[in-house]
């Protein structure tokens, strides 16, 4: 487009007034817009700086990083002298292997170590859309088989380690991964069943399942799985504790995820289903190719929200005596040499949980953006 000007000169390009763009403009608009806003900024800034400085002072500057070895293990005397003023990271240095791997035999802990690495590699591979093919399923099955072979052992030079000696991060990852991987298909089936018009019995069963499970706390389900369930089982047939807890988590996650998936199904316009039917697609083809790809895309944020919630909820297994990451940390603190240094241990545990959850959160955000871009919106 061109507009002829009588002089033939281009007019001087107007610039926005100074101080309305760039960092200065941003500060002015968002932090010092009015006297009230300025006062709040200063007050909050003071609190934040004060707190941050206090934390840095405690966690880094006056922290104790190592302690000498005494006759009966590490001697935490320096730590106790600094208590309240400086963090004692020596507790982590001494206990990190117990926190990460629980009561797994000390000399065999490279095995759960490899398993954690395998889990993370598996998540990374699954996150990459280029790998979203049938082969990924085989990769999952293969990797999970290797993980269990390594954890149990009992072949070749690997000593057998029963699963009541497993602990720490591998337990958390096993419970969360299997929980969500098994709960997700279950949730899809339940959500579809709950919307079925042709099969009223299936619909009622699905409603009963969701309402029953949602109506009780996960803790009580775990208790039932660990205490009540064996009472009803015939003598001698007693699936192990980890498996029972796993099943309880799957059932619980399944009910919650089912409601999330159902929300996505309900949000789809009816015309999508009708168009697929009119083309002659069978129910399952229609569901797999048209309905689910759209419905699940719609609910990525609440799905990931539920995933993150369940990743952390696996820590509840501590009440039935399974050594997940949080329990292992708690037990590590029971060592008389290190009593009283809970803050340091819990901070590290929180950091580990945060890394996993934050990664999930960022990934889902990126996925939403990419899927939106792919559809040209």
């Amino acid at each position, binding site marked *: 487009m061109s507009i002829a000007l009588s002089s033939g000169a281009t007019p001087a390009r107007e610039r926005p007034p100074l101080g309305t763009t760039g960092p200065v403009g941003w500060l002015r608009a968002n932090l010092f817009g009015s006297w009230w806003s300025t006062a709040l900024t200063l007050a909050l800034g003071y609190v934040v700086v004060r707190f941050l400085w206090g934390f840095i002072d405690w966690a880094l500057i006056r922290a104790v990083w190592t302690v000498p070895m005494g006759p009966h293990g590490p001697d935490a005397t320096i730590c106790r002298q600094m208590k309240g003023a400086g963090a004692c990271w020596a507790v982590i240095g001494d206990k990190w292997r117990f926190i990460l791997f629980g009561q797994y035999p000390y000399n065999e802990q490279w095995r759960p170590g490899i398993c954690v690495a395998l889990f993370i590699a598996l998540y990374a591979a699954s996150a990459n859309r280029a790998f979203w093919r049938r082969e990924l399923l085989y990769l999952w099955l293969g990797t999970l088989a290797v993980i269990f072979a390594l954890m149990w052992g009992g072949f070749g030079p690997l000593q057998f380690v029963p699963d009541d000696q497993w602990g720490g991060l591998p337990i958390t990852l096993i419970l969360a991964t299997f929980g969500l991987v098994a709960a997700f298909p279950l949730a899809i089936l339940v959500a579809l069943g709950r919307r079925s018009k042709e099969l009223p019995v299936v619909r009622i069963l699905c409603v009963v399942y969701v309402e029953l499970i949602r109506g009780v706390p996960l803790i009580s389900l775990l208790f039932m799985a660990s205490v009540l369930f064996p009472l009803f089982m015939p003598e001698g047939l007693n699936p192990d504790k980890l498996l029972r807890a796993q099943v309880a988590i799957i059932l619980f996650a399944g009910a919650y995820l089912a409601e999330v998936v159902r929300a996505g199904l309900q949000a789809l316009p009816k015309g*999508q289903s009708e168009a697929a039917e009119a*083309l002659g*697609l069978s129910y399952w083809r229609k569901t797999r*190719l048209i309905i689910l790809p759209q419905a699940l895309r719609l609910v990525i944020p609440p799905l990931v929200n539920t995933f993150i919630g369940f990743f952390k909820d696996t820590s509840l297994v501590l009440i039935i005596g399974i050594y997940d990451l949080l329990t292992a940390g708690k037990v590590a603190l029971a060592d008389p040499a290190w009593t009283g240094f809970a803050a340091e241990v819990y901070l590290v545990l929180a950091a580990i949980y945060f890394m996993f959850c934050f990664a999930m959160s960022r990934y889902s955000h990126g996925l939403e953006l990419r899927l939106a871009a792919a559809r040209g919106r």
Partner: protein
Amino acid sequence: MDETPAILLEQVNKWYGSMHVLRDVSLSVAQGERVVVCGPSGSGKSTMIRCINRLEEHQQGRIVVDGTELTDDLRALDAIRREVGMVFQSFNLFPHLTILENCTLAPIQVRKMKRVEAEELAMEYLRRVRIPEQAKKYPGQLSGGQQQRVAIARALCMRPKIMLFDEPTSALDPEMIKEVLDTMVGLAETGMTMVCVTHEMGFARQVANRVVFMDRGEIVESGEPNALFENPQTDRLRLFLSQILRGH
């Protein structure tokens, strides 16, 4: 022309709850025939056309499509849906698939066609509706008129014997109606059996062998378009035509 009708409705009745939406509807559409169904909103015309591929179920009477009766038998239903294409008022393209994928989905999944063949077929029909250059785009990137032409191509890719149109231009801006109607006229010229719910009287005059006027769930009048429009026999049709003409 073959003797068996492409579509046969005999004394079809349907209720929504206690509301009687189709009353003793009987209609026979010969192969190659083009029927336009018109009538005021709520007259049951969409319901009737949706009964033909069983997006709605009728409760009484018989519907026979391409020699197969519509019953609870799912296999018969699948067979009918393969032979009957449908175009909706709101296009209903699949937004997560490209234009090309929208068109190849059913031929690959239902007709078991090879991907390459299905894509060739789809491109042929996309050329016929004059938008082959949009094949790699997503539905959200196209105008309403273009989307509706894709929807027509998508239905044609199944090589149906019968095409149903449920108010295909009602959701379109005026300047896009013509491009869709032109496509439909082109399709009519190929001898396709068509049943079309529309208020486009010009289109009806141009291509329809017969116009069916429905009101309050029943077929009130039917006949050759010019005769029907010039010489309505009932007050209901006269009233409807005067409203339609005033609206245009």
